């Protein structure tokens, strides 16, 4: 045997949730392969899952608790390892607990802000939010879903009452017609993209791509609509106009399952394809064609990513899609639906487990008396009824001096928040900052105490993938040095803070294994009632909702009704709040990902993946490059009103003229130095995909 042993687990990267086998030799992951025959990936992987788990062995892993040397200086400065000293667990935890309880007793619970983590397990996140809610008595908890699918969630909540993907990954091969919009699927959800491509090539499904960039999926499409960035609502409203005008909608579905159609359809009168042509730059006949294809299809599904969601109009973008699905009845049957493709491995699960400011686990509202009483009883303490602040509201609240203490598990806001200058300025004002992480990243450099955590391959628990499948994460190795599993760290911290503020939480944070935490959550969340670690072990993975032990789980949603009862149409007004290009900043900047990297790069930049994609770049259309006198060897400087970065150039007609594209992964040229902190009114998600920039020759 070439390996000492092989451990099956769930991939730590994207929301597809591939099942992988880690081949272990002498305490290291040597290679990974797809688990044979197991859903959802059935033997497939992408480069990140197959080759990218080596970050867990990177020499810069945190192995000991760290305490900042110059604690409590007037202004917090970022520092590398040299700015910290190693400490024992007891010292670090006591120090963290001292600082937290001091704030709690002096300023009360509203002085705390917290981020839980879409990469940690459901169990870690459940316990983290339990700590925040029951010990710190605040609902100021959020995570990066706010910065990614918040607008999809807000829109789908309004329209349907539930925000999860309506289809399972297994259904994808059997599509008839589908629209991919604002998702560079082959790079962001590679395994899902193979099913979507297969649907086209093998099963004659028809694909429409609606995306300003010529992404690889467009090679498989019968129609590619390249609209001007930020004009999504106009495209979809005009499609709806055609569907109403030509009566391509499903009267029966509208009557039985929806409300508000008459009013909505009347609001579409002016939204002709000709009107949209002026706004979107897409010819009217292409919009007509897309509308007919969608309206006439037997079954049709939407798949989207950040292009729809990360926008100041993100909620409206989502609603414009939901409106189309509702009027055509493309919901509730296999092969139909509305599907936000979730980004992180456990972004679905982190929300499910209560990692949001307005809900307890299982989407039970914190402001709802009945839910609050239920959780008070379960956790044996009184709880705060006031919904907390969202990610960027917490950042603002630091700026305003309301929040003085931050506790961050795994997130890296100093790469992921827009307008990093402002974000840094806010963090430097904190009085106390505790970070739990596996590496010292851009955010950790501001921390007072850093507690070293276990990576995905060093812990037990569950991740919930994009199609709501709860899957097991299995421990393959011990954490390096003294690092501990997140939930263990949180338990210790919770007990110590409790003691200092005069409350005894020891029985509430007394777990010896991750599955005991799951069981506590499953008792409180009806949709998890029938799921246990032991059952997932037997059945591989279970789609929630799964209310009891005899329930088989729910691969697709909405077959009989929507969670809000009837699906609701929403009238939409076309606005344009994005920063527009002008003479000084003549280009639109769009941000996104590349295949080989992951978000802020904390993991993939410390992996062999970085060897193939080591440098930040800006993608520019050949015509624009000529206009600006830039050739392929140039180093360029891209600047917005907020900042400026220097990077390589990649000349390609993938992006349309007038639009530059920069990936989000590179700290040395962090694109969020340039982006703008304007937010969607209801989802509070920033406008990452559009801001005005200029480009010039660099050094």
């Amino acid at each position, binding site marked *: 045997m*070439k390996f000492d042993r092989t451990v099956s687990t769930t991939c730590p990267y994207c929301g597809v949730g591939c099942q992988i086998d880690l*081949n272990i*030799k002498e305490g290291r992951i*040597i*290679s990974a*392969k*797809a688990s044979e025959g197991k859903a959802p990936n*059935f*033997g*497939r*992987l*992408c*480069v990140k899952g*197959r*080759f990218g788990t*080596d970050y867990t062995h990177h020499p810069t892993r945190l192995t000991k608790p760290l305490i900042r040397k110059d604690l409590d200086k007037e202004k917090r400065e970022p520092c590398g390892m040299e700015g910290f000293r190693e400490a024992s667990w007891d010292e670090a935890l006591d120090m963290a607990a001292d600082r937290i309880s001091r704030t709690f007793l002096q300023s009360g619970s509203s002085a705390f802000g917290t981020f839980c983590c879409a990469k940690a397990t459901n169990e870690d996140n459940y316990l983290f939010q339990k700590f925040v809610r029951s010990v710190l008595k605040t609902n100021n908890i959020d995570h990066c879903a706010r910065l990614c699918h918040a607008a999809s969630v807000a829109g789908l909540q309004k329209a349907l009452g539930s925000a999860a993907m309506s289809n399972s990954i297994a259904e994808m091969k059997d599509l008839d017609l589908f629209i991919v919009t604002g998702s560079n699927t*082959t790079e962001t959800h*590679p395994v899902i993209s*193979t099913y979507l*491509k*297969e649907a086209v*090539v*093998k099963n004659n499904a028809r694909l429409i791509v609606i995306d300003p960039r010529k992404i690889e999926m467009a090679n*498989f499409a019968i129609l590619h609509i390249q609209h001007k960035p930020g004009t999504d609502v106009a495209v979809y409203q005009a499609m709806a106009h055609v569907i109403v005008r030509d009566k391509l909608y499903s009267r029966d579905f509208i009557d039985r399952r929806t409300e508000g159609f008459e009013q909505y359809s009347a609001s579409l009168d002016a939204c002709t394809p000709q009107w949209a042509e002026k706004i979107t730059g897409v010819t009217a006949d292409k919009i007509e064609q897309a509308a007919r294809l969608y309206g006439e299809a037997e079954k049709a599904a939407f798949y989207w990513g950040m292009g729809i969601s990360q926008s100041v109009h993100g909620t409206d973008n989502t609603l414009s899609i939901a409106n189309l699905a509702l009027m055509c009845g493309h919901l509730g049957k296999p092969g139909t639906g509305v599907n936000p493709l979730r980004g992180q491995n456990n972004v679905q699960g982190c929300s499910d487990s209560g990692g949001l400011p307005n809900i307890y686990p299982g989407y039970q509202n914190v402001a709802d008396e009945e839910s609050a009483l239920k959780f008070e009883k379960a956790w044996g303490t009184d709880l705060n009824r006031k919904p907390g602040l969202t990610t960027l509201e917490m950042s603002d609240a630091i700026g305003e001096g309301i929040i003085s203490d931050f506790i961050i598990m795994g997130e890296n806001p100093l790469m992921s928040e827009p307008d990093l200058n402002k974000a840094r300025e806010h963090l430097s004002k904190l009085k106390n900052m505790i970070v739990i992480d596996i590496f010292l990243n851009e955010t950790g450099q501001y921390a007072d105490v850093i507690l070293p955590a276990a990576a995905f391959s060093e812990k037990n628990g569950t991740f919930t993938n994009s199609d709501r499948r709860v899957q097991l994460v299995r421990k393959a190795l011990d954490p390096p040095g003294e690092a501990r599993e997140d939930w263990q760290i949180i338990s210790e911290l919770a007990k110590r803070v409790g003691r200092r503020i005069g409350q005894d939480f020891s029985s509430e944070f007394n777990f010896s294994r991750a599955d005991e935490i799951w069981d506590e959550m499953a008792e409180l969340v009806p949709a998890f009632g029938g799921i246990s670690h032991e059952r997932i072990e037997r059945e591989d993975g279970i789609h929630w909702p799964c209310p009891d032990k005899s329930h088989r789980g729910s691969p697709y949603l909405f077959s009989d009704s929507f969670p809000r009862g009837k699906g609701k149409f929403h009238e939409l007004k076309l606005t344009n709040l994005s920063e527009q290009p002008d003479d000084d900043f003549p280009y639109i900047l769009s941000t996104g990902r590349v*295949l080989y990297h992951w978000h802020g790069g904390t993991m993939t930049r410390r992996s*062999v*993946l970085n*060897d*193939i994609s080591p440098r930040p770049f800006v993608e520019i259309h050949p015509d624009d490059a000529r206009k600006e006198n830039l050739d392929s060897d140039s180093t360029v400087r891209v600047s917005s009103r907020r900042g400026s970065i220097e990077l390589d150039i990649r000349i390609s007609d993938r992006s349309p003229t007038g639009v530059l594209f920069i990936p989000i992964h590179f700290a040395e040229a962090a694109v969020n130095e340039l982006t703008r902190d304007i937010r969607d009114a209801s989802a509070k998600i920033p406008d990452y995909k559009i801001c005005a920039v200029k480009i010039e020759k660099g050094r």
Partner: protein
Amino acid sequence: MNQISLTIDGKRIQCEEGLTILEAARSQGIDIPTICYHESLTPPGLCRQCVVEVKGARVLLPSCITEVKDGMVVETSSPRVMRARRTILEMLSASADLSEAPDLKKQIDTLQAQTERFKPKVPNIQEPLIDNPFYIRDYGKCILCGKCVQVCSEEVQLSYALTVAGRGFDSRIATFYNRPLPETSCVFCGNCIEVCPTGALKPRKEFENEI
């Protein structure tokens, strides 16, 4: 689906119409060895290791692509079949390094194939190709089963980075214009590694760990 009946190795069985002989046999617990067959891929019918003797048929038939017929009489391990399989393994041994093909080694043992029987005209000695950070291609071990090409194109990945180049004796697996992988449409999913039966495709870390 219609049920039909046939005889495999003297045993009368019922099965669904449309199955291949291989599927029908395996459903009865009768194992037929295969090389180029893979459960989740379209059988290319290339290697002929799965041949069986069907009464009335002139030549041996590849069971992985031959459909069952009502009344068929099949022998899966007659002397003629065994001889054919043994010869295939002996020829493969002459053309590629099978030291990391556990399944083939097992078949060689079971059939007592003489791996030294044929001397290759041109010995297949090749340096492993290391042109990317992720995996190596050691075509000295390649038996041309074509699974990697299948997986990379229509069957799974739809990236079309690999192809069969050349004809006849000169056939080999290659990228278009023999370009290094980073210059092709390869996305390093490694799904080709997963199906390679001989270790010709291998993660670099495994490769480096062995030397």
